[in-house]
């Protein structure tokens, strides 16, 4: 009976959400708590994913679904016993970066293996060069743990623990996180066993079939909203030394989408190469957002979306290419797909946005002689939607949130002097692109700070859609010398100010179609200046008959 299965489905989802909530509280890594950079999932013993917690990053959508099969291959059911826990951080098996650790626990109901429960958590440090682009191969990026037993029949694997301790800068935090993952998996495992017992069900087979069939059907139905055909799209990002082209052919046929990334740029010598799992994740994410499938992630909802990328290209990294900062490229992937489907999707599309989160890392020595290291993140504007303006200073496609100025200043000798929206930075259109933001940052460290920046869209602005204009491109420089900043490391001296102007999103539809009310609002609140209004919207403040002194 379907309704009973739906109840069980909801309980599985609740178990994963519970697991994710517990992990988020206990996690040490800032990116986990600020961005929800973690996942929690339930799988059948045969590896089909049945449920995944709704968390903050699209990058894990397929990573977990694909990773489980590697675990089963490495440790087939007959090699597993109650009390075993498996772990890996191999970028190619999971989500494309060594920091992400996947912990998988087999769940037994009596003697019988009934499920796997898995979680993925971004750990604080893995040794090596950290999260930047500097490494030229994965060997420089840190410790890689092949799929291993972290715990065997309830006993912690001492050798593995010693290997981790010997290789990472934050061994206590890492082990704290791995044990929290283990405990969370155990809790979700007992919730599953309790559910089976209370409902008198032997295993998850029938439920699994129901979840996968229902989800696949609903996803295919949503995809059928796109007319069958082959569509092409691309996006260009600044890259490190040369621009990166991401190009895709999207083939839609009777509820199935195949995305082929052939034609995209070749490998990069820097740590921005993307493993196929991660490319797959952002591809699935873009398609399911666009068609508005709103189906929980599982093997069924992922099945109608397939991906190909040329091995060795930037979107299908070949080991041992360096991958630590793969999000720099990954965050542009959805833009290419959205561009490809702009025509058939019509008003359901979204214009290009800032794409990347801008990351800046500050290192140096405080006035007390303590060394410090602090990472700031900030988002530019999102592209305009087909029925509303783009969101200003809001991350898309990532879900990472910004770091408050007061948190930065209380953690490191930094001074955030400005964080404000940039007027006229949103691309003009019937619906305006989201505005970018300006940050002005100085350091109070007497010797200055070494700053590494990961910026993009300085050269390539976010394009508009359906007649909308591009957003303003990003800019970065140092005051007072006005020396420009690109993707590099440099010293910020006391008295200097790093100015970051983040890009705005593209507009949607012709600017001439923007409503008078919206233009009045733009002008009254200063989102668009009078000058830009004349240039981009071919109208003047006088013609809008503004009474700026009046209320709302």
């Amino acid at each position, binding site marked *: 009976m379907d309704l009973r299965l739906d109840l069980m489905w909801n309980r599985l989802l609740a178990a994963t959400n*519970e697991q994710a909530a517990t992990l988020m509280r206990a996690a040490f890594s800032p990116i986990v708590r600020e961005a929800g950079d973690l996942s929690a999932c339930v799988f059948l013993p045969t590896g089909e994913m049945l449920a995944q917690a709704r968390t903050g990053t699209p990058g894990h959508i397929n990573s977990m679904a694909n990773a489980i099969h590697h675990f089963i291959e490495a440790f087939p059911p007959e090699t597993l016993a109650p009390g075993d826990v498996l772990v890996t951080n191999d970028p190619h098996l999971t989500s494309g970066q060594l920091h992400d650790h996947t912990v998988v626990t087999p769940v037994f109901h009596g003697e019988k293996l009934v499920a796997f429960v898995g979680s993925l958590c971004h750990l604080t440090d893995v040794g090596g060069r950290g999260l930047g682009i500097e490494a030229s191969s994965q060997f420089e990026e840190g410790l890689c743990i092949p799929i291993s037993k972290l715990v065997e029949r309830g006993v912690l694997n001492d050798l593995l623990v010693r290997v981790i301790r010997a290789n990472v800068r934050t061994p206590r935090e890492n082990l*704290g996180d791995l044990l929290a993952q283990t405990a969370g998996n155990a809790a979700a495992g007992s919730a599953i066993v309790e559910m089976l017992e209370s409902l008198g069900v032997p295993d998850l087979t029938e439920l699994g079939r129901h979840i996968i069939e229902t989800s696949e059907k609903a996803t295919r139905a949503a995809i059928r909203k796109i007319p069958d055909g082959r569509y092409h799209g691309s996006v260009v990002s600044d890259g490190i030394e040369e621009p990166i082209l991401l190009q895709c052919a999207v083939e839609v046929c009777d509820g199935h989408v195949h995305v082929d990334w052939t034609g995209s740029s070749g490998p990069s010598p820097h740590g921005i190469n993307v493993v196929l799992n991660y490319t797959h994740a952002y591809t699935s994410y873009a398609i399911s957002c666009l068609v508005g499938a709103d189906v929980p992630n599982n093997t069924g909802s992922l099945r109608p979306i397939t991906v190909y990328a040329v091995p060795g290209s930037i979107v299908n990294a070949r080991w041992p290419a360096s991958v630590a900062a793969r999000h720099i490229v990954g965050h542009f992937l959805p833009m290419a797909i959205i561009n490809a489907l702009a025509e058939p999707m019509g008003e359901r599309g979204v214009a290009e946005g800032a794409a990347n989160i801008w990351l800046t890392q500050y290192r140096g020595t405080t006035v007390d002689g303590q060394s410090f290291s602090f990472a700031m993140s900030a988002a530019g504007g999102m592209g305009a939607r087909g029925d509303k303006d783009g969101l200003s200073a*809001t991350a898309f496609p990532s879900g990472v949130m910004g770091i408050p100025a007061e948190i930065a200043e209380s953690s490191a000798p930094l001074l955030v002097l400005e964080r*404000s929206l940039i007027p006229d930075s949103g691309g003009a259109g019937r619906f305006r692109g989201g505005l970018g933001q300006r940050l002005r940052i100085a350091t109070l460290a007497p010797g200055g700070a070494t700053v590494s920046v990961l910026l993009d869209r300085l050269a390539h602005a976010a394009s508009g859609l359906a007649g909308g204009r591009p957003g303003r491109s990003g800019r970065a420089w140092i005051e007072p010398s006005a020396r420009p900043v690109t993707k590099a490391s440099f010293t910020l001296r006391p008295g200097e100010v790093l100015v970051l102007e983040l890009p705005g999103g593209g507009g949607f539809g012709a600017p001439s179609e923007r409503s008078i009310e919206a233009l009045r609002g733009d002008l009254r609140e200063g989102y668009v200046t009078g000058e830009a209004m004349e240039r981009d919207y071919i109208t003047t403040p006088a013609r809008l008959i503004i009474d700026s002194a009046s209320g709302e």
Partner: protein
Amino acid sequence: MIMAVRIGIDIGGTFTDLVLVDANTGVVAVEKLLTTPDAPEHAVLAGIDKLLRSASLAPSDVTNLMHGTTLVANSLIERKGARTALLTTEGFADVLEIGREGRYDLNDLGLELPRPLIPRRFRLGVQERMLATGEPYRPLAPGSLDCTIAECRRLSVESVAICFVNSYANGAHEAAAASRVAAALPDVFLSVSAEVSPEIREYERASTTAANAYVGPVVARYLARLSSGLRERRISAPLFVMLSSGGLASPAVAGMFPIRMLESGPAAGAILAAYLGGLEGVADMLSFDMGGTTAKACIIERGRPRTTSQMEVARVWRFKKGSGLPVNVPVVDLIEIGAGGGSIARLGRLGAIEVGPESAGAEPGPACYARGGALPTVTDADVVLGYIDADYFLGGKMTLDVGRAREALRLIADSLHLRIEAAAWWIHRVVAESMASAARVHAAERAVDLRTLPLVAFGGAGPVHAVSVARLLGSPSVIVPNSAGVGSAIGFLVAPIGFEVSRSRPSRIDAIEIAEVRRAVGEMERQAREIVVSGGVRREDVQIDYRVTARYAGQGFEIEVDLPEPVQWTRATIEERFRARYGSLHGVTVEGVPVEVATWRVVARADVHPLETHTAPTARSDALKGERTLFRQDSERMADVPVYDRYRLAPDWSSQGPLVIEERESTLVVPLVAHVRVMPGGSIMVTGL
């Protein structure tokens, strides 16, 4: 405090509930009037008149009035606040709009962010700067401030919020700016972040300060009208206002920090559950308050509702977490776990039954109200299942139309090829499942195991659904207090007078200067104590609780740790307390990682006299009213079960379910075999679920 005749007043969205208790005679009078949204004091004053008449008391007999209102929440939700300006540090005028830069639902490309309460042209930068250490970096420039004051005048604002960067560490610039604004614009309401919410994170603090300013003039006008109405009636008894933290405060304090009244009604419900649990000897429990539009739960520990300092109001996008305005004030840690009686059931896109968040409200209401509603609601399902007696709704004041309820449910039953009773049972079950899931996630986030906590149920629909929810949560028991249907208004009468002062001072524990912290906390304590004493409490009756939030360096979430008297503080004792609390919450401690403290909190409170009104019902043998047919959840079929009258149950009564116990405002439904008995304090307990 002598509290002979107390009146509790709860202004809700639909009804204004009033309860009068006379401690001398044990008289309890209850009134329920329609809320008068444009001038809420009208219903309050009319209700007081009626109460006094029915209890045959004179206005001068009233010794205390306790009051809660949804006025603040409504002003924010409906955007009906004052014309408000925000003064920020130059460069941060957009902090209210930039927010946290995240999307609360990754899969919804159409999502909307909350529109800032204060539009951009009303947000003005001032030249000044404090450092995170609290040292001034750039002095407050009087010329720049005067320009913004002139702009405020030009914009004819009624209210001004001031939030400067790092003011949680040193509020001197804010205070100086506030006094200059007050001198220049004597009629505006002032809201200063270091006073309203001196906690780190500029967006959340600005949002809280702005919301406080936005509602300030509205609340001030309302309290003035209410006071003058009371004076006209020659009621001179002190008026107390319920704060979201579950403490009562004087109108003067509430008027300065109106944002602290945000959740006053629901907080009172949790206070009541804690109090009544205490009467039965239960200190830890989960309160479960289910009304017409929502169900709320709160974890109660050691006799007190858990509190938090973070909440969200006025969610703009499909009720989703993250789509509202953050407000950081002390608040009872309530979670909205789901639908209410009026919530509408439908088939979702995957073909499963979904309930809410859309509600039929009071108008047109559920289909069985026969006021034009045609969509199936939770109440319609309960009527079809026999859980609500169509002839005894609100004690028989209203008759429900079973035929219309069945007709509405047919929509769902037909598409699923189910009988109408079966469809009703699925709706009831889906509601219970979703509430249980939400409660479990809430508990997991707080590392609480719900399987050890009795479920204390109240609100109109609470006792109808409590047993179903408790079974899913694995609760050891369900406890249903007397007069469960008007819980919040009674809650006001048992709440302590209290006020919390907090201050963020983030630091590694090994770097704090204990003497300096003691001095700062002593100052906070004096402030909190004075506020409570100003509410008419004797100085020696004030109790002080000390708490600090702490975490391992590198973690993002602090946990709250109870502290002893400051004289006993050392770095080691505070760290020890943190490690013990962390261990009991997470089951592990992390050795070798340093500990950081963030926010110090001082709560001053004075407990009021207990409510001595539970006149034990006289033993009556005719409590059994009859039988009715309802859906048994164990056999999954309709069956006849006995119906008891709550008002006639003997103090030592006990029985076996399935059964139903009716009172005027609600019905306890035990739809399966279970043990049911009256407890010493008068509540009913269901065990053996």
